[in-house]
């Protein structure tokens, strides 16, 4: 598949602060790639460099096979959706969406046609004459998306676009953005610090930490096969267990869903004796917190049962999992 976007050893410092270590990344056409990481991990810097709003100190950016490192933002053909949407307050919704087309000197009739179609795509056909401040947060979000995709940019960058919305609206918009992604066949680079959002939406996740890429892979790779302690901890919950004696310089990790509370005679590849401390009903799942005899805190998540578990807090239990669910993590050098 064609490569839409290529970063080659791109780096950026603000004075003594290393905001982005030399980073290399390829994004194929049509992919939904999420940059996921805590604040200060370099994901916003990376986005700014891609949009051309910040110049990188070294390295090169290739967009659509063109060397674009020093291309000004208006020539990049990259769409950027801001966290606060940055809709122009003095222009109507239709004028906002028409803006990028006017910049490209399209004929008026074509502009009107495309704006009307775009408003339909984002399911807001009647708000063209309104000012942005007269719309709800979710509607503003859709207008921002419409404005950004109406000129069919080669890649759409989204900077925590759902951060300002409440939980329910956020879930709706996640679905909506997925739908628009498929419908328009756009390549999307999405920035978030919310791991659930990243899991829900992405084809691939680029996990960032400390100004560099910690791990790049599909959501399930990142979740089930993390390659570092950071990756294991940042995405989902991680149970760390003392490694077997022959691999003393590594760590072992098991996801809570893979740990079972063993019945009387049940067997498993790995078994640990523990005391159950608490059970929390979360709806579909229940979370069991236990402490092993060697003092480690272990969390197991299993399907809830209506009658509740037969085990009470303070009771001795046996926890077990299959060998293939144990993930060996390399000890992190220099940290």
């Amino acid at each position, binding site marked *: 598949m064609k490569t839409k976007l290529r970063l080659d050893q791109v780096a950026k410092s603000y004075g003594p602060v290393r905001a982005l270590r030399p980073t290399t990344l390829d994004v194929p056409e049509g992919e939904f790639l999420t940059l996921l990481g805590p604040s200060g991990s370099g994901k916003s810097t990376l986005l700014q460099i891609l949009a051309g709003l910040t110049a990188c100190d070294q390295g090169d950016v290739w967009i659509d096979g063109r060397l674009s490192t020093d291309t000004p933002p208006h020539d990049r053909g990259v*769409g950027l959706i*801001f966290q606060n949407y940055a809709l122009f307050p003095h222009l109507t919704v239709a004028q906002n969406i028409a803006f990028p087309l006017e*910049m490209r000197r399209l004929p008026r009739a074509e502009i009107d046609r495309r704006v009307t179609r775009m408003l339909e795509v984002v399911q807001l056909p009647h708000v063209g004459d309104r000012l942005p401040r007269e719309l709800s947060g979710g509607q503003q979000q859709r207008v921002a998306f419409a404005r950004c995709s109406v000129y069919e940019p080669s890649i759409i960058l989204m900077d925590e676009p759902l951060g300002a919305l409440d939980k329910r609206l956020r879930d709706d918009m996640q679905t909506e953005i997925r739908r628009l992604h498929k419908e328009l066949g756009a390549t999307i680079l999405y920035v978030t610090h919310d791991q659930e959002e990243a899991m829900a939406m992405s084809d691939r996740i680029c996990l960032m930490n400390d100004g560099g890429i910690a791990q790049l892979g599909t959501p399930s790779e990142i979740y089930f096969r993390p390659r570092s302690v950071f990756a294991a901890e940042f995405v989902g919950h991680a149970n760390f267990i003392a490694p077997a004696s022959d691999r003393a310089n590594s760590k072992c990790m098991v996801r809570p869903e893979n740990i079972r509370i063993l019945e009387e005679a049940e067997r498993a590849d790995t078994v640990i004796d523990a005391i159950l401390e608490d059970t929390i009903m979360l709806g579909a799942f229940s979370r069991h917190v236990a402490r092993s005899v060697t003092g480690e805190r272990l969390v197991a998540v299993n399907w809830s049962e209506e009658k509740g578990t037969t085990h009470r807090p303070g009771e001795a239990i046996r926890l077990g999992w299959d060998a293939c669910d144990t993930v060996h993590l390399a000890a992190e050098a220099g940290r």
Partner: protein
Amino acid sequence: MTVIATEFPTTRADRRMLARYLPLVPAVAFLAIVFVIPVAQLLFLSFFDNTGVPTAAHYERLVANPTYFRVVLNTLSYSAWTTLFCIVGGYPIAYLVATISARHRNPLLIWILVPLWTSFLVRVLAWMVILGSHGVINRTLLSLGLIERPLDLIYNFFGVMVGSVHALMPIAILMMLSVMLNIDRSLSSAASTLGARKSMAFWRVYFPLSLPGVAASGLMVFVSALGFFIAPQLLGSPSNIMLAQLIIVQLEEALNWEFAAALSVVLLAATILVVVVFDRTLGLSSLTGEVRAGASTRKGGFGRLPGGLGRQLVSAIGWGSVYAGIFLGKILPYRRQRLGEERRSLLWILGLIGIAFLALPTFFLIPISVSENRFLAWPPEGFTWQWYQVYFSSAVWLDATVRSIGVGLATAALSMILGVPAAFVLARQRVIGKSVILSLMLLPMVLPHIIVAVGLFYLYAKVGLVGTNIGLIIGNTIFSLPYVVITVMAVLRNYDERLDQAAWTLGATRGVAFRRITLPILKAGMVTALLFAFVKAMDELAIALFVADAGTPLLPKQLWQEMSYKIDPSLAAVSTLILVIVGLSIAVVQILNSFGAKRG
């Protein structure tokens, strides 16, 4: 490879760094040539006699004669009193405006700003009408039988104070307001839930947080008052003159330039001393409203008061007002107060009196301008257009009006051309030496205008610009520039830069984004800056006095001369016309703005 890796970024960064400074260059160069150098030259002059031989004679004369020492003391005490009255009178107004709902805030603010938009000379004339022995106050009290002889309200300390406080209080209010609006309202609520009564919450929480604003406006008023000469000259006693007046006397009557320069040095030294002391204790950034509420916790200023003395003082005032409130509540008729209802009638009374004091005086000139009585006496008698006829049949007045408007417009344009790019850089970019550059831009606002005007005259005399329109425009721009820079910076602080970035990523070049997005959104603020520059230039007397010659009449100069020698209602007619000109230009701008907003 490593060489490339380290060198490449630095060159890129260097190029960007230099480009950032570019928009600052015109404004800085302008001020260096027509402001810094002339003032420095003037001060230099004080160390020479009239044949060019170095001497300290002027300073010896200054020290030897106790009269001059008295003038210096006089000036300082006059400034101190002006400051005190502006703060004490302005604080309740600023507090009222800061704590009412945003919907009510703007109408009040407009009335507070009325004096700022009105010519200073016009305001002084209004006070003559109000305070004079035949004036509004005396005639009213006489007719009510409350007094038997007219009170001496003018040509003494009282008159000067009224004129000066009226001139400077709006600035004091605005500077206090900018700090007060940044104070989190929930802090006072928090204090209440922690057990503080309303007045205690005010004195222990709100008041200390507002102190940076009080300090900043105090500095501004004090330093401005040091250079005042209009109010002391026209409303004060001739036997009790200020430093700036003494400088004018030395220049115009004694023609002793070197001694005038020595006096200027004294005035400047006093100004700089005050500014430095202020900067050491509180920091100059509060002048541009950048002070954060937390700045008061900085080591220095009020934090330096020994052993929490300041806190104890404030606490004592707090308890005092709590008990006063309880006492008043006992003796006043009992009215049940609902929860959340605030008793603010006293604040409203104080605030409205203050706003009336600021806004109303100039309107007394309108009836006087059509009165048949030729001595500005109150109440107006009959009705006549003759004073307007005097104006319209006078070639000098008409010439002065046309020239003032022309110079004012050109000044406004030049100030915008120089000031807007500079304000953009200062508000948005991280540049080295920002505070120095900003101080340079704002310096003309606080320096006595007379010093700058005299220095400029000296420079102009050498290059033949005295009495030329270009000379006047340059001179006025020195003083209009700070207003443009401050206004545009304030507007930019509320502007979300991401809108520009959005425009760029959507395909707009920097130029197009500026024209289509930045400018339309900032339009109202830009126009305000332009108007400010225009009004200031129309009103600038020091430049008109020293840079214009006899052949170039200007409105402020003409008003000043006539007010100094003969006062008749034709001055009221001219003042009314000036009010109409300024009022009309504000109205036109407002209409254009609202029209543009509807269309957009």
